[in-house]
């Protein structure tokens, strides 16, 4: 900017002495706070953001296309690599879509267990979100506290399936493994620990003046506007629209549990923070009910050796931690891989709201807003 404007000033006499050009800043793809390889081209007027252009695709691995050459079970592995902080949720959404295509009955125990895994995953994902969001705003301590508790969730997953990040935890028709002995008790213990530790996060943030000033009325989006952009998940709920697929179109075993859907009133960053904090508590509630009522029986239904769904197509959506995670799968009925697999990733759709959210805010808010959307680039780019 410096050199450019000086030169243009010298050549162009009609320009005013003090140049007021917009400053274009490239935030990312290598930037400590863009949560991966997100690139945001910001047009700045001083420190105020005039416009933002989101550039994605740096982590594109062609998962949708790859799926067309994998058999139905192998694809579960690919879904792990989309939203890698919530891999189990991806597994669940994919498996349920294939089950829907196959009209397959999943045993009740498997559905309960899947619900527990999905809710644990929601807690883990929200912990990563809370930690990184707080760190972006400068509260580094919260980040380490959150990862400390997330570690416990990962331990639980490790005990169940041996993996800590990309679990490959589900199968079409059920689950590969039964509940390990004593695991359910440890999950309940974790629930107690989490509720106890949440007090620490709340002490550090909820009533913190600086936190309030940084998040209140930042990135406000009204309910109708949120629907228009296609936001989903906590973002939509924070704007006052009580849309939760777990309640509206129950899947797994969600229909059998009682839980509340937290809804915000203002639709700002602080509301989104509160909504997600409340979701921790609701997840704990669901997990406790599920563990208590965990039925006996097999964890995998009668699945044919060769999965070959009949010709047809279907869309099935899950309430992933970040929003509506949907799979559209078309099968031609002949091959052992999908004819077309299309993912509706929540991060990708929610990221569309970013330019609208940041306009008129300051550079510092851009970081807070990328954080509040809760994106995982693996899922945005696939």
């Amino acid at each position, binding site marked *: 900017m410096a050199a450019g404007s000086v030169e243009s000033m010298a050549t162009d006499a009609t320009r005013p002495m003090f140049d007021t050009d917009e400053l274009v800043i490239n935030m990312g793809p290598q930037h400590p706070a863009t949560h991966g390889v997100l690139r945001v081209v910001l047009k700045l007027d001083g420190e105020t953001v005039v416009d933002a252009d989101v550039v994605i695709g740096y982590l594109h691995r062609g998962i949708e296309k790859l799926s067309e050459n994998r058999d139905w079970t192998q694809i579960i592995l690919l879904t792990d690599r989309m939203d890698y902080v919530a891999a189990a949720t991806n597994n669940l959404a994919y498996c349920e879509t294939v089950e829907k295509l196959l009209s397959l009955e999943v045993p009740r125990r498997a559905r309960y267990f899947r619900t527990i895994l999905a809710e644990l995953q929601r807690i883990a994902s929200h912990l990563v979100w809370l930690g990184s969001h707080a760190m972006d705003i400068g509260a580094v*301590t919260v980040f380490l506290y959150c990862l400390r508790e997330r570690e416990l969730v990962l331990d639980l997953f490790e005990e169940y399936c041996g993996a800590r990040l990309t679990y490959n935890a589900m199968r079409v028709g059920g689950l590969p493994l039964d509940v390990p002995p004593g695991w359910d008790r440890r999950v309940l213990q974790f629930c107690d620990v989490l509720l106890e530790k949440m007090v620490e996060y709340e002490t550090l943030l909820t009533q913190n003046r600086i936190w309030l000033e940084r998040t209140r009325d930042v990135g406000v989006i009204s309910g109708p506007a949120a629907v228009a952009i296609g936001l989903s998940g906590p973002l939509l709920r924070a704007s006052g629209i009580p849309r939760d697929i777990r309640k509206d179109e129950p899947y797994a075993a969600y229909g059998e549990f009682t839980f509340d859907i937290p809804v915000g009133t203002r639709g700002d960053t602080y509301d989104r923070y509160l909504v997600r904090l409340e979701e921790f508590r609701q997840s704990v509630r669901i997990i406790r009910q599920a563990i208590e009522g965990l039925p006996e029986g097999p964890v995998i239904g009668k699945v044919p050796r060769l999965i070959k769904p009949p010709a047809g197509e279907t869309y099935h959506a899950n309430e992933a931690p970040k929003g509506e995670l949907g799979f559209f799968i078309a099968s031609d009925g002949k091959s052992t891989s999908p004819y077309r697999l299309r993912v509706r990733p929540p991060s990708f759709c929610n990221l569309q709201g970013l330019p609208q959210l940041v306009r008129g805010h300051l550079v510092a808010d851009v970081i807070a807003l990328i954080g509040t959307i809760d994106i995982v680039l693996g899922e945005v780019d696939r």
Partner: protein
Amino acid sequence: MIELIVFPLLKIVFILTGVLVAVMYMVLLERKVQAWIQVRLGPMRVGPHGLLQPVADVLKLFVKEDITPTRADKYVYTAAPIIVLVPALIAFAVIPFGSEVHLFGVEIPLYLTDINVGLLYIISVASLGVYGIILGGWSSNSKYPLLGSLRASAQLISYEVAVVMTLIVVVLLAGSLSMVGIVEAQLASGVWFGFVQPLALLIYVVGALAETNRAPFDMPEAEQELVAGFHTEYSGMRFALFFLAEYTNMIVVSSVAVTIFFGGWLRPFPNVAALGFLDLVPGFVWFVGKTFFVLYLFLWIRATFPRYRYDQLMRLGWKVLIPLAIANIVVTGAVKVLL
């Protein structure tokens, strides 16, 4: 001859080494304290409990490649870190680390010099540092450093106003601008000025945090927003100079806080004769202990609070701290005149 040249030179050497070692270990302390607060261990590998980590850090910074961006303004770019560091170091000239000690029959005051405008000297010298930051950000010829240095200059200048206004109150109380004079005034009145002027202390601490670019006011180098702020393009020893300056400044503002608000080298409750046994502890130790406490407060705050936004910071400075500081001057002055 000896008194005029050798002693001061020796003192300068002592103070410089002392400060630089203190700065090195300040960095380690910060990492350790942060780690303890954040349920981590911090540096553990180099030496027992990472005690040699500062040595390793300095060695690393020395051998690192020193990069100057092609389009940078070379001379300014080189000068900037020096301009930042030097004022931070020379501020120590007037800070009294203790009263006199008797060594080999000679009475040696534990300060380099006691000029009669010591406080004024510190204020003026400390405000020079901002030039280094502006120049560093500008000469890098890069956008992030530019934004960082613009923020820094605005922030430093506005908070300096609040801090200086606060110091005026202390001068009113002490009736002296000399650092030693201020401590002696606290001895005479029998109470630390921090207790007389809690509001001034509060404004000073907040202002000091902002002036040293510490969290929650670390806008100029907000790593999540501006990468590394004004020193993004710096590497190796030049980066280390900025780094040193930051921590030196922290020690400076803490020492000043101790001197003017916490009685400098005085023991707690200097007026209570019953606590006279505390005098067995040398004044120097009290001074270091208190400074350490203030520094610990800095680290504690950093580990606890999120970062302010730039506009909120300016609002806090101009709309809250400065009016409060002015009101404080008026009230203190009125009380002083009426009594």
